[in-house]
Each structure stands twice: as structure tokens, then as C-alpha cells.
């Protein structure tokens, strides 16, 4: 069944290719010009991977820093967490990208600092901040899902807050946090396509540029979609492997 679902659209595409509206020659790797085009398109892969990876790592760090005050017993700290999460979560990615890329340097300038933001770091900062609101919620849910009795038991054997977190709560919570966190990585990869609009030479930008010169949007964007599909499938396999490992640990 699964195989059938995969093959069906391919057959459809192959069938269509004979008609006049398709022009697969544009990305046909057996011809010199087609091969050049394919190489050009795929060459954006490395930038997409770099942006996504760095943004994900930053998001994981910032997310934990945002999540911890959300778990505090003090209302003021929880408020800090709520405001950050609600505010950041509400901003669509594209406007935030524009604000960071075009606006943030002006903010720095007005403070007397000269901090140029190139498309690469503009995209990373935007993706990391945008995603951190979600990772913060993942952390918070994961830590809160550990039964209250665990913390109480830790307290009754004399552990302080940091020891309780480090030896009792986080080792248990991490098993529940890691899979959704890795899952969130897929979101970042897909959203990194927005970096194309500020001129980052990643997968989507390459496709756009080739479309402008070749006038074959259907074939080129089809290949683009498959490029993302392959990236995401690789990550999915990684996530699944991670979940299995975590599950196996839990049983042991």
C-alpha cells in the first residue's frame, strides 16, 4: 500500500511528460545543460542544511532558557516565560524575517553599534527565535510530565533544586523531550525556504533563479519539493531511530 502511494504520483508525472506541457529536459541529468541545472539546484542543499542545523541548536539552547522560568513557583518568572512564548509564537515567520534582516541593523545603528546582518545569519536568528517559543513549550511539557512525586521524593532525601533537576527530573524528561524536539527540526528545515526572499542561496532561491532563466516552473519546483522530501525523510528516519532507542531504554 505504502509503495503504491509513492509510485502513483511518479507514474502520473511520467505519463504527463510525453505531453507538450512538460519539459523534463530542463533537469535531465543525461544532457549537459540538464546536468548543469540539476547541479545548480542541488548546490543549495548545503546552505539549507547549515541554516537549519545552526538554527536548531540555538533554538534548543534558547528554548531551555525560556522554559525554566516557566516552571518557577514565582509568578513573575512564569510571566516572563508566558510573554515570550505568546509573543514570539504569534509572529508569522516572514514578517519576523523582514524585521530581523531589514530592521534589526537599524536598531543596532540607533544604539551606536554597527552590526551588519547578512542573509545567512538573518535567516538563522529568525528561525532560532521563532522556533524557540515552541521548543520552550516542549521542554516545559516534558518536565511537567514527570510525576510530582518524583520531585517530592528527591526533596525528602535531601536533594536541592539543582540536584533534583539534574539527577531525577531531567534524565527522565529528556526521553520525552528529545523525540518532539527532533521533530521540530523538520519544521525548521521547511521554514528555512523563507530565507530565499532575503537572498540566501539555499534550495528554494536556487530554484527561483533557475525558473527565471529557464521558464520551466513545474519541473523545477517539482524537483525542489523532492529535494525537501528527501531531507525530511532522512530526518524522520533519524527521529524514528531516536524514539526506538529511547523506548528501549525505558523498558530496561
Amino acid at each position, binding site marked *: 500500500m505504502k509503495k503504491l502511494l509513492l509510485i502513483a504520483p511518479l507514474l502520473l508525472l511520467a505519463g504527463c511528460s510525453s505531453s507538450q506541457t512538460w519539459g523534463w529536459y530542463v533537469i535531465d541529468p543525461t544532457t549537459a545543460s540538464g546536468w548543469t541545472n540539476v547541479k545548480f539546484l542541488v548546490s543549495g542543499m548545503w546552505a539549507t542544511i547549515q541554516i537549519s542545523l545552526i538554527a536548531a541548536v540555538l533554538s534548543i539552547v534558547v528554548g531551555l532558557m525560556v522554559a525554566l522560568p516557566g516552571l518557577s513557583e514565582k509568578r513573575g518568572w512564569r510571566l516572563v516565560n508566558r510573554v515570550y512564548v505568546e509573543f514570539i509564537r504569534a509572529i508569522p515567520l516572514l514578517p519576523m524575517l523582514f524585521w530581523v534582516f531589514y530592521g534589526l541593523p537599524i536598531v543596532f545603528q540607533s544604539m551606536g553599534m554597527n552590526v551588519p546582518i547578512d542573509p545567512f545569519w538573518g535567516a538563522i536568528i529568525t528561525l532560532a527565535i521563532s522556533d524557540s517559543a515552541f521548543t520552550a513549550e516542549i521542554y516545559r511539557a516534558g518536565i511537567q510530565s514527570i*510525576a510530582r*512525586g518524583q520531585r*517530592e*521524593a528527591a526533596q*525528602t*532525601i*535531601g536533594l*536541592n533544586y539543582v540536584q533534583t533537576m539534574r539527577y531525577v527530573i531531567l534524565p*527522565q524528561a529528556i526521553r520525552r523531550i528529545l523525540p518532539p524536539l527532533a521533530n521540530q527540526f523538520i519544521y525548521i528545515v521547511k521554514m528555512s525556504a523563507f530565507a530565499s526572499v532575503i537572498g540566501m542561496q539555499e534550495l528554494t532561491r536556487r530554484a527561483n533563479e533557475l525558473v527565471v532563466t529557464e521558464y520551466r516552473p513545474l519541473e523545477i519546483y517539482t524537483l525542489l519539493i523532492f529535494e525537501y522530501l528527501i531531507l525530511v525523510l532522512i530526518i524522520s528516519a533519524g527521529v524514528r531511530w531516536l524514539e526506538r532507542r529511547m523506548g528501549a531504554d525505558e523498558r*530496561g
Partner: protein
Amino acid sequence: MPDAAIELVGVNKWFDTFHVLKDINLTVNSGEKVVICGPSGSGKSTVVRCINQLEKHQKGTIRVDGVELTDDAKSAATIRSEVGMVFQQFNLFPHLTVLENLTLGPIKARGLSRKEAEEKARLYLERVHIPDQADKKPIQLSGGQQQRVAIARSLCMEPRVLLFDEPTSALDPEMISEVLDVMVELANEGMTMVVVTHEMGFARKVADKMIFMDAGEIVEEGKPEHFFTNPQSERCRKFLSQILQH
């Protein structure tokens, strides 16, 4: 009283507007075994949880070993090192082995070396009759064994007082006695104990003092011989007749 291990004077507590503890006065002397019973929601667990600061009381005084419990973290830490607690749901750490469960507190909070802590842990595992389960994870043990590990974990901190919050309520019937046997042994060795339980057979065997609570108040307090045969209050009489029928 110099040998009072625990003293509660006029303790009151509210959960929002719900008055869960009303003017609780209770003294537990060193070596004494106090059993608290009462219907669910009567506040008996809350009393025990206030003694080791898992809950904060809002009015009145609680002294452990003569030290008054205040809001600062230091007093809470002092108290917790004097007072052990056994929970209804065991609350063992599932990601650690039995031995690691027992040595975590002594190593991290008491500063013992791993070797010292493990020696002590094996000693107490022997005392709760499961010396050969040290390297298993809690989930591989039966409920009764898990609760005995939890008791051993408390003992490893060498507390002056041991609190039990319905220690057998989550157990299958056939496992209750193995836990109660360990508790009776502890009692006979002179441990100061406050036990919230409905196990009246156990109470008869070890209790120096019986407490009956209802609706946040201590309704009746007395020696077990009087408590069971001639309860003074109607509420206590009714409660006892209900749980002793079976």
C-alpha cells in the same frame, strides 16, 4: 518537652478557601509510634506532608527536633535530613537501579563516598529483606518489594523520624503484610514513626498513640486499647465500625 521529636501547635492550613487543617495540636516523642487514621479528605496526609515541608502551613508552629519550620530553604533542608518519608505511590526513581535509588541521597546530599553509600545501602536492603535485588530497576520488582526499597531509601538517610503516607494503600493484598512486617520490625527497633494508614491490625500491634481525623480536625486521640474498644466520639465510632467490619 526536651524529647519531643515533632511538635505541632495550633497548625492551620488552607488550600485556597478550603480549610484543610484546623488547629492541629500533636506531639510525637522520640521513639513513639503514632498512627493517624480517618476518612479520605480528612487532612491526615496533609499533616504528614506539612511535617516535612512538602506543604506549607499558614498558621501555627511546627517544630522538628526543637527547630521551628519557617519559610527559608535552609530550615526545610535541615528538617528533611531529619525526617524520612515513605509515599503511597513509592516514588522510586525509575531510571535508576535499586542501589542507585538508595545511594543518591547519601552521596549528593550527605557527601558520602560511593563506597560508603553502597555499603550502607546493602545493609538496609538486607534489613528490608531484599538484599539480592540491588541491581534491578524498580519496575522489575513487585509492588511490595518496591515499597520496601522506598523504606530502605529513607533509612539510608538515617532519619530521626520516619513518616508513612498510606504505605500499603497502593499494594495488592498479598503484598501488604511483607511491607507491614518490615514496619513492625522498625517500630520494635525504636524508630520514631508517624503512620497514616487504615491497617488497624498494624496499628494495634505497634501504635503508642492513635489519632482519628475528620474534616481537618483531630477528633479523637488516645492509647490504642481505649481507642479501639471505647471511642469517645460518634464520628470515630462510626468510622471504626466501617473499616473493622471486614
